[in-house]
């Protein structure tokens, strides 16, 4: 399902600009949506789900224009959405909650609905606790139930906001493989702060900074943004002086080895191949520099 976003802006009450002039094409497959807190990711996803309307600009999802009520309703019929925070009804069991959402999604046929629910409960490993009330679920179990509800109705467009937050490592790996399988025949948008999740599951990535689109391309090319700017340097303790961003710090027998992204490597720094984290940091540094230059003009 193709998503076309043209000159999209969103300003909330109080003149709070969440998105500014975003133009973007999203093709079938899994796309990672990255950005700092407040970058506009959740606003973009809420617009794509038809929950809120843009201030200006146009959005079409699978040919449906989100400016019209009919268009929004049509998109909602094709959509599975997992919000960032989800406080589920504690008085329903997991199975009942899924049945409720399935009915709201218009899945009328009872045997088909129950079959889907059984399959999804199995897929997110909640079958054994399906008859337990959600109020007694752990954070990870609630998150998995949230993922299951997003997949009800076999949606052609899946939008998930921080889906692996609160999952333990094993659950996260299971979710990654689930997400990777989803992207084979539908459009999946994954918003996350966990770059590893993007590296593992998303061939393409979109990055927002301060409401503006700063990158749209392959995940590999995003890593390439830090080519020639990524170094390691070992010091006896504190990080080296200079203008750089520290990606990781690891204690070694000879001191602390810092992985840094910088335009001016400190003495003794060794160039290394960049990864996604390095590329993301390089991009963010460049975006901040551009914003600062723009505001100084």
């Amino acid at each position: 399902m193709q998503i076309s976003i043209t000159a999209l802006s969103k300003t909330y009450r109080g003149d709070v600009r969440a998105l500014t002039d975003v133009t973007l094409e999203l093709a079938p497959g899994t796309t990672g949506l990255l950005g700092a807190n407040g970058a506009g990711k959740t606003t973009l996803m809420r617009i794509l789900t038809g929950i809120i309307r843009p201030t200006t600009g146009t959005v079409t999802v699978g040919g449906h224009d989100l400016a019209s009520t009919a268009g929004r309703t049509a998109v909602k019929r094709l959509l599975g959405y997992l919000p960032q925070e989800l406080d589920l009804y504690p008085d329903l069991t997991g199975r009942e909650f899924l049945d409720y959402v399935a009915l709201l999604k218009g899945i009328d046929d009872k045997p088909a609905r129950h079959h889907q629910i059984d399959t999804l409960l199995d897929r997110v490993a909640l079958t054994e606790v399906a008859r337990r009330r959600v109020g007694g679920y752990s954070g990870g179990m609630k998150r998995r139930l949230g993922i299951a509800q997003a997949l009800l109705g076999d949606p052609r467009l899946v939008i998930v906001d921080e889906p692996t937050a609160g999952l333990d490592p094993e659950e996260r790996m299971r979710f990654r493989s689930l997400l990777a399988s989803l992207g084979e025949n539908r459009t999946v948008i994954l918003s996350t702060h966990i770059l590893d999740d993007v590296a593992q599951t998303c061939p393409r990535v979109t990055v927002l900074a301060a409401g503006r689109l700063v990158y749209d391309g392959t995940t590999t090319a995003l890593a390439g943004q830090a080519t020639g700017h990524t170094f390691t340097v070992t010091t006896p303790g504190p990080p080296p002086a200079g203008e750089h961003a520290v990606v990781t710090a690891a204690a070694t027998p000879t001191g602390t080895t810092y992985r840094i992204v910088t335009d001016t490597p400190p003495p003794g720094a060794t160039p290394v191949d960049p990864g996604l984290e390095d590329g993301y940091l390089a991009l963010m540094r460049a975006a901040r520099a551009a914003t600062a230059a723009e505001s100084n003009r």
Partner: protein
Amino acid sequence: MSALLGPALTGSLRYEALMAARQRGLWVATVPLVALSLLAAVASPSLNGLRETSAQIGAWAVVINLFSTLGLAVALADRFARARRRGLPDLLDATAARPAVRMIGGLLGSLGAALIPVTVAMLTVGAGFAVDRRDPSALGWALLALLVVIVPAALLATAFAATLGLLVPVPLARVLVVGAWGWATVWNTSIIPAPTVTGTVLSPLGDYTAHGWLGAPALYAGHGAAVLSPPVTPTSAAIALAALLGATVVLLVLARALRAART
């Protein structure tokens, strides 16, 4: 059921009823008040010994309504506010189900569960009079009284409480509902001379319908503010019923607007 009502309304009715029924607070708020209202009706000399079975049951229905409906409105003041749990509004708004359908289904489903003890009480009253007076029509009168005296009042009171719960914190809404219920049903202007809808067609006490259609003695009906308090007749009873249903619709529209404004 879903083929008849549509899956979204079916789901809202079914699962909101289930969630309400699983809330201990609902039963704590309603069952003692239903018991108290039955005790009050049994003990009141002015409510008993009426010749007509319909009048007798209508009079009991007004007393049961006075106490029980307050309990269920207080218990259900959180119905609209609880749908604002983190992330849930977005999740529900991202489904194709219309918000108005979800809201109506949520209110009716919760109310359906809350009305169980009241319905049991009214059917017990009907069965009791049917046996005592050897008049099987008592069961039909009890059902009619439930539908025209208690259900419209419960709809209005619950819609009011749940809408108030969107504007102020739910515990405060519960306190305000108690005051509003007293003001709208049994406010005595000779004791506290202040404007009230008690005694008018806008009062949810139900004595317009109980008196106009069932022949029960009128408690306040016809003694309220002049224009809104016509003499009690079957026609004015119909006006009172329509006024309650209309006010409920207005509150639901307001609640929908409040929710939409916060999206």
